[in-house]
């Protein structure tokens, strides 16, 4: 049985006199013990709200509705009361946030912030806690940890702050770690250090890790299973290699075509996805990605696309997926957005993705 099973999670923010925002609209995924699972998507796809909802960290405000289930080790996290949720948070499930400066308290020394977790969940006090905290800082690669304990967050560099945050997260050896864009605020060389650290921690302790990021490169090097999110729903789930080798959902194909690669030559054109994330269709009316999709057919609009289960734990939510190369001669078209143009498309002709940047489509006034 999976360690964490998120089933049909939905988060809606409603405000008076305004349209409700479906930030997360039926997300389902599962995390096995010791597995590294990636949630990938662009801003606004609901990846962060998903993690906050699982942790119960969404601000309690009128109009917030959280639906669905998030079963962690047999208990539904969404049904817990605050007290028992606080017991689980930090001990069994911990979280690493994007910006270490704003998630550390600026007026409390690092040491106190680390020992707080130890006191709360492991009942350690005084010298024992301080010693353990120093060991934790040492484990995440902070030099001279005893001295660092007395320091304040502003005295540490960005990479060191993120390390301190990771030390706090792993203090109780949680079984699940959720990392929300842990390296986005950092430079590449520091990012490499932090990713390496996370990999080591996961390997040594058997902690399951949910990695939330927009960077496909980070995902490629770390995750076992990857969920691609769009418009608040998982559009494709696959193991790491199949996803990058043969992406099926047109959005995944588009994302991979948009990223400039370090090992590609100068002058190779990128294949961007036309339009922007604002061109969204509500899932109830069809596929949210349809307005930007180059493989759109009539069946895309009208009703939401069903989740198609393929072999090898792979699934995608698309009625006209990109063909797998070498599957059948008829379907052997290359898996690129440009190649999609010669597949008969019933609806409008697709925008020539390889040509100049398509003009953004007309957007309604907000």
């Amino acid at each position, binding site marked *: 049985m999976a360690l964490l099973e998120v089933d049909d999670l939905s988060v809606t923010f409603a405000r008076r006199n305004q349209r409700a925002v479906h930030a997360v609209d039926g997300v389902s995924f599962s995390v096995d013990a010791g597995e590294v699972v990636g949630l990938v998507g662009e801003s606004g796809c609901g990846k962060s709200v998903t993690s906050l909802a699982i942790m119960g960290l969404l601000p309690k405000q009128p109009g917030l509705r959280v639906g669905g289930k998030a079963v962690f080790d047999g208990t539904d996290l969404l049904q817990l009361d605050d007290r028992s949720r606080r017991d689980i948070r930090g001990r069994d499930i911990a979280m690493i946030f994007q910006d270490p400066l704003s998630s550390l308290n600026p007026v409390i020394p690092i040491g106190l912030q680390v020992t707080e977790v130890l006191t709360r969940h492991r009942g350690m006090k005084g010298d024992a806690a301080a010693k353990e905290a120093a060991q934790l800082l040492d484990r995440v690669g902070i030099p001279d940890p005893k001295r660092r304990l007395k320091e304040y967050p502003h005295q540490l560099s960005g990479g060191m702050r993120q390390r301190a945050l990771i030390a706090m997260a792993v203090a109780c050896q949680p079984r699940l770690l959720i990392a929300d864009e842990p390296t986005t605020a950092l430079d590449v060389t520091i990012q490499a250090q932090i990713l390496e650290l996370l990999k080591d921690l996961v390997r040594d302790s058997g902690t399951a890790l949910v990695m939330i990021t927009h960077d496909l490169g980070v995902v490629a*090097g770390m995750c076992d299973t990857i969920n691609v999110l769009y418009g608040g729903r998982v559009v494709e789930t696959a193991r790491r290699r199949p996803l990058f080798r043969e992406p099926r959902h047109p959005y995944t194909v588009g994302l991979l075509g*948009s990223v400039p690669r370090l090992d590609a030559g100068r002058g190779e054109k990128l294949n961007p996805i036309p339009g*922007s994330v604002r061109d969204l269709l509500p899932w109830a009316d069809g596929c949210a990605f349809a307005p930007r999709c180059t493989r759109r057919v009539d069946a895309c609009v009208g009703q939401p696309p069903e989740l198609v289960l393929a072999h090898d734990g792979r699934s995608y939510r698309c009625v006209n997926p990109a063909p797998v190369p070498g599957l059948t001669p008829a379907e052997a078209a290359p898996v690129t957005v440009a190649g999609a143009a010669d597949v008969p498309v019933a609806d409008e002709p697709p925008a020539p993705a390889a040509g100049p940047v398509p003009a953004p489509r007309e*957007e309604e006034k907000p």
Partner: protein
Amino acid sequence: MSDSDVLVQVRDLKVHFPIKRGVLFDRTVGHVKAVDGVDLSIPRGKTYGLVGESGCGKSTLGRALLQLTPPTAGEVSFDGVELTTLAPGKLRAMRKRMQMIFQDPMSSLDPRQNVESILTEGLQAHGIGGNREGRRKIISETLDKVGLPRWALSRYPHEFSGGQRQRIGIARALVLGPELIVADEPVSALDVSIQAQVVNLLDDLQDSLGLTYLVIAHDLAVVRHISDTVGVMYLGALVEEAPSDRLYTEPLHPYTRALMSAVPVPDPDVEDRRERILLAGDLPSPANPPAGCRFHTRCPWAQPTRCADERPALREIGGSRVACHFAEQIATGELRPHKVSAEIVRPEGEGEEPGVVSAPSEPGSFV
């Protein structure tokens, strides 16, 4: 290369910012050497990419090149005209030939100006286009070039998505018909799919208008994608400069190697195979850079001789320019990397020993 082909020539450019202390009398207690002796030249119609981590001085270099930040020393010649000594009036006239695209499209566009007003301002300041009708015509053409619809003219920045805002920023730079565009992190605030649209747009504009770019970015993959030549900066100086393909296939400077190996590639096979060179520690403070080679404190190849006491100059090795004493030996594998332990680096302005600064002793002492 003949001189007429070079649009921008920078010689020994330095930008030092004073560090001031004191309440009544501002004492200068030191300098942050943001840019400390950079030479580069950008051929007409080409793209020069500048990469480096935050704090390495790449943005300051771009701003100093356009004279937006006055350089402390050095020369910048643009199409044969020396900019550092140019009279303010003449400099102003030159500015229409060199424009800038900023990182964050939201904060670099005035929220209370509509797009037409944003685009007209530059034209008016430089007296281009004559009357209102003439300016309208230029603006409409520019909108077409950047792929914005005509109805955008009467709208305000908040009504656009991030990618479209960046297009407005590009249109504002283009409307004056510049030759050089300095793009400071033009795509880093954008989503991946939008990033690709803007990168392609910049590429297309260069092809159709013959623009010269200086692209400043921290994303090595983006820079490699759009640049002809790439310069790698570390602590205010260039450590390596090479044609972009060569830089990728044969990085010579240890820092470039580390940087290359740190960039994640969206391909599991590549990710699993490659060898990472992990740098220990953080970027040293530019207020107090290490003596000798600036990189020697973090360099896995650092040698006891020369590295710590002699600052390497850029020298030519097979088409690249590298600032490393031992580049050849490292390339042939004669020198092997060794382990470096991390040194603690204080964030800027926190030069004191950790024991001393524990808590602000009086209110406002850290302000």
